């Protein structure tokens, strides 16, 4: 059962950290592209939309799934604590509480990853809408 502990400590938390890095990297990249993009170069609204919303789904996925992954880590941690309790019989209350408290850190990290991701996603979505609206105004709404 030691592998379960290692899985929670390194697997889940490592996965969450990687997800966080990916989300921030995509956010920065998208932001730079939105600043650089020239809407006049696009003749079609749909192709502009495809170009703008590229990779945005990844941030949305990370934002919505990070809490679940964190929760999974917590459940595994609590499983491990209960397993140890059952195996060792009488256990110190302090030890049990420490085990449970440490199990909750996975949820905390999941939330810490999810909150900025959702914020970034909404921010980028707003930018996309603004750019599309700008294209529409530039083209006088005649070619929609």
């Amino acid at each position, binding site marked *: 059962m030691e592998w379960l502990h290692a899985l929670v400590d390194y697997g889940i938390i490592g996965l969450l*950290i990687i997800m*966080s*890095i*990916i*989300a*921030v*990297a*995509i*956010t*920065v*990249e*998208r932001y*730079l*592209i939105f600043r*650089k993009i020239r809407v006049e170069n696009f003749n079609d609204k749909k192709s502009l939309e495809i170009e703008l919303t590229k990779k945005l789904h990844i941030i949305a996925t990370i934002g919505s799934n990070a809490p679940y992954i964190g929760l999974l880590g917590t459940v595994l941690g609590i499983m491990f604590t209960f397993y140890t309790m059952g195996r060792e019989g009488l256990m*110190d*209350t*302090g*030890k049990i509480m*420490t085990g449970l408290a440490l199990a909750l850190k996975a949820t905390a990290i999941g939330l810490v990853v999810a909150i900025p991701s959702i914020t970034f996603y909404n921010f980028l979505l707003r930018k996309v809408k603004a750019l599309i609206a700008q294209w529409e105004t530039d083209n006088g709404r005649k070619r929609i």
Partner: protein
Amino acid sequence: MHEQRYGLISSLSIHSIVFILFFALSVHKNTDYIKTYYIQFTQMGEQTLQAAGPSREIMKTKVPKAIKKDVVQTRCNDEPPVKEHEAVIINDAIESHEAVNVASTSDPGLQSEATHHQGGGSTVGNVPNAAPSGTSGVIETEFGSTGAPAFLKRQMPIYPMMAKKLGKEGRVVLRLFINEKGKLMNVEVVEQAGYGFTESAVEAVKMSTFSPARENGVSTASKALLTIRFVLKKV
């Protein structure tokens, strides 16, 4: 493509900054360098053996290496210090006199004494070969006397839950090697007690900070005896 690279680099740097800040703020005092010695006096000082009670017998049967491992494991937990409990823990100089006598009979250096014991075939606890640094000019003292090292930050030991439940009390005598800068170099358990008292005391000592011993106004390295009594207050 450039944007992707910029994005990845900035993301990695943001995360590393966050991690560095996180680890810098959560200051973990590194106590890995502190060695814990367990010494058991079996041939000398028989009268103090009785004072320690039957719990010593339990501890004696354990392999010292295993005890040390336990200490390491409890250290990993990094529990927040519990300040408030109903137990009184006193550092009493008067009470520790018999322990001092035991220690002083074996004073010409821990290492030589330990090797002597091993040669004699009697039980001596786990003595790692790491010698305390700067043994020359080390003064022998005990907490509470003049010129002795003092606590800068005193971490109260946690009264072990099991001992509290069973109503057990105990006394642990430690000898702390404190260098001239006040840094704790290692901890030697002179007198053990069962029920997790020893581990709790060692843990608390490792989390405390000390001021160095002073001899003629000059700070020196010292070996200081510290007695920690675990006493339950009657309610």
